[in-house]
């Protein structure tokens, strides 16, 4: 038996792709890669996907400024609504700016800022590395189905910072070109980081006369339990999770219209993900089109899962996936999945994938509304 549909009542996204959905739509359609070198920290020439309209006040945390910008666009919530906040490092710039004194609780600072804006709501912070966005969404879906709240607001947010960039450089994960990232490409050599914030307002009610903008059918999470940073290159655990999640939605693989992959543009992430998809779709003729939004936004860490859903809803409205940004020549085996042109969706359903450090996997299926 499939679980109750979780309806999406409202969605917002801010990223390098655009300050709003209309701007992002143009960026995706053009396959644009709006990466620039940040000036708010010593980025050493590494390009990032920055939220161009974000202008923190002097001394203000960039994370808090981005959060406020997102919150200003959201509807009011009641005391029977709950909030699920996804972040990996929170207001990490507060640590960077802290010359002395006690270490700031960077994720707590962000959580407190959400509480100040919605003082009547319970707020749960969910951290599952780069799978945090979808993990928080899955927690919100469970809470709604469990009758814990009337509506659930999911927020995914992370910023570009010297802290994170220096860390990813140290791991050899950042593109050696420093300027471009090419998910699923034969010449991919790493990721570019991005910042972003996304929000989804969810509920079990179908929204009355106005309807809703989409629905979440099923979500699943698992752990490779193999290596703290490296994915399972054979993709077995991710493939098993996708199959399980499809089953929970009562769907077969051929009933997916398209896939938004995690697609960081690193050698190993993309290889693992393509291997998983090959396992799930083995023996099937045509595969649904695959896209990574990180070619346009950069890797936005905990925000990416929420952004994938928000932008995915817009792709569903348009009935097509935009071109894969940064793609020159698909990696071996990726030819049947990705393309440098927009492609029609087979049906109004998308699979969205996240993976994260620790071997964390997340799969989620969303459905569009006409």
């Amino acid at each position, binding site marked *: 038996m499939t679980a109750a549909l979780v309806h999406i009542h409202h969605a917002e996204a801010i990223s390098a792709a655009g300050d709003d959905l209309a701007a992002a739509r143009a960026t995706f359609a053009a396959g644009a890669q709006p990466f620039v070198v940040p000036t708010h920290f*010593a980025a050493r020439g590494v390009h990032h996907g920055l939220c161009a309209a974000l202008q923190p006040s002097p001394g203000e945390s960039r994370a808090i400024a981005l959060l406020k910008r997102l919150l200003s666009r959201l509807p009011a919530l009641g005391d029977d609504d709950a909030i699920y906040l996804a972040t990996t490092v929170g207001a990490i710039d507060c640590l960077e700016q802290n010359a002395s004194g006690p*270490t700031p609780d960077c994720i707590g600072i962000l959580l407190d800022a959400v509480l100040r804006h919605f003082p009547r709501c319970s707020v*749960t912070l*969910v*951290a599952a590395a780069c799978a945090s966005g979808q993990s928080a969404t899955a927690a919100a879906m469970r809470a709604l189905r469990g009758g814990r709240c009337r509506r659930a607001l999911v927020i995914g947010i992370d910023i570009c910072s010297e802290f994170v960039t220096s860390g990813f450089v*140290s*791991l050899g994960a950042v593109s050696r070109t420093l300027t471009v990232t090419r998910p699923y490409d034969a010449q991919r050599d790493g990721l570019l980081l991005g910042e972003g914030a996304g929000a989804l307002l969810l509920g079990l009610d179908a929204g009355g006369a106005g309807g809703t903008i989409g629905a979440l059918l099923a979500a*699943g999470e698992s752990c490779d339990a193999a290596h703290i940073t490296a994915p399972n290159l054979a993709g077995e655990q991710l493939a098993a999770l996708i199959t399980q999640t499809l089953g929970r939605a009562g769907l077969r693989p051929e009933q997916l219209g398209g896939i938004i992959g995690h697609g960081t543009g690193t050698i190993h992430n993309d290889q693992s993900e393509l291997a998983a998809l090959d396992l799930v779709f083995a023996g099937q003729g045509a595969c649904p089109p695959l896209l990574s939004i990180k070619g346009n936004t950069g890797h936005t860490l905990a925000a990416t899962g929420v952004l994938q859903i928000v932008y995915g809803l817009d792709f569903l409205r348009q009935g097509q996936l935009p071109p894969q940004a940064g793609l020159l020549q698909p990696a071996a085996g990726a030819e049947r999945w990705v393309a440098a042109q927009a492609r029609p969706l087979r049906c109004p359903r998308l699979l969205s994938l996240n993976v994260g450090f*620790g071997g964390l996997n997340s799969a989620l299926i969303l459905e569009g509304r006409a």
Partner: protein
Amino acid sequence: MITAGVCLTLQQAVCLRRETLAYDGLGELKKLIVAAADRFVPGDLEDFRRACDMVRLAQLGAILAASDRRTWSPAGTALIGWNGCGCTPANQAYWDDYQQHGRETGRGMFFVPTLPSIPVCEAAITLHLQGPVCYIRTPPQTRKLQEHLDDLFSDDATIRQIMLAEIHVDHACLLLCDRQPGPLPDHNDLTAVFWQAKKDLTP
């Protein structure tokens, strides 16, 4: 229902059912566990040497909590990290190291633990737990954690048990809960839950 658990510090591990272990540091606790392999469930401790104490507490605590259960199987086990001190100490350690090394690049061994989910992920790797794994922060009331437990169990029939982990800089508490009814007693942290459960077990 709580089926097993452990509260451990850098010198002592008190199990819910089994005997208390005393040691001088987590390196010695690891040696104790490895030397008495027939008394503990097997665990992958490959990352132990380069891990920080919070990760080590999670890894060894997971082995002790699993060993405390009468019969152990990793199948269908989810792991939730809850509250504790999150990633604040690891953030400071990475940032200090990065600054002291001239801001050229960070060091991966310090960067990876800056995510609050890393200790529980390392624990999952240690015991090969492939269920959902994440870190959550809620108000310090176990009834809030109970809601997540109940929702996870009711959402996914393949989950047979959930390991809970509250990890601090120098101590941790890990509890195993199965599907049987029996809510967590209402406390502010898992350590208080552990001691109440231990008291309830004492004849």
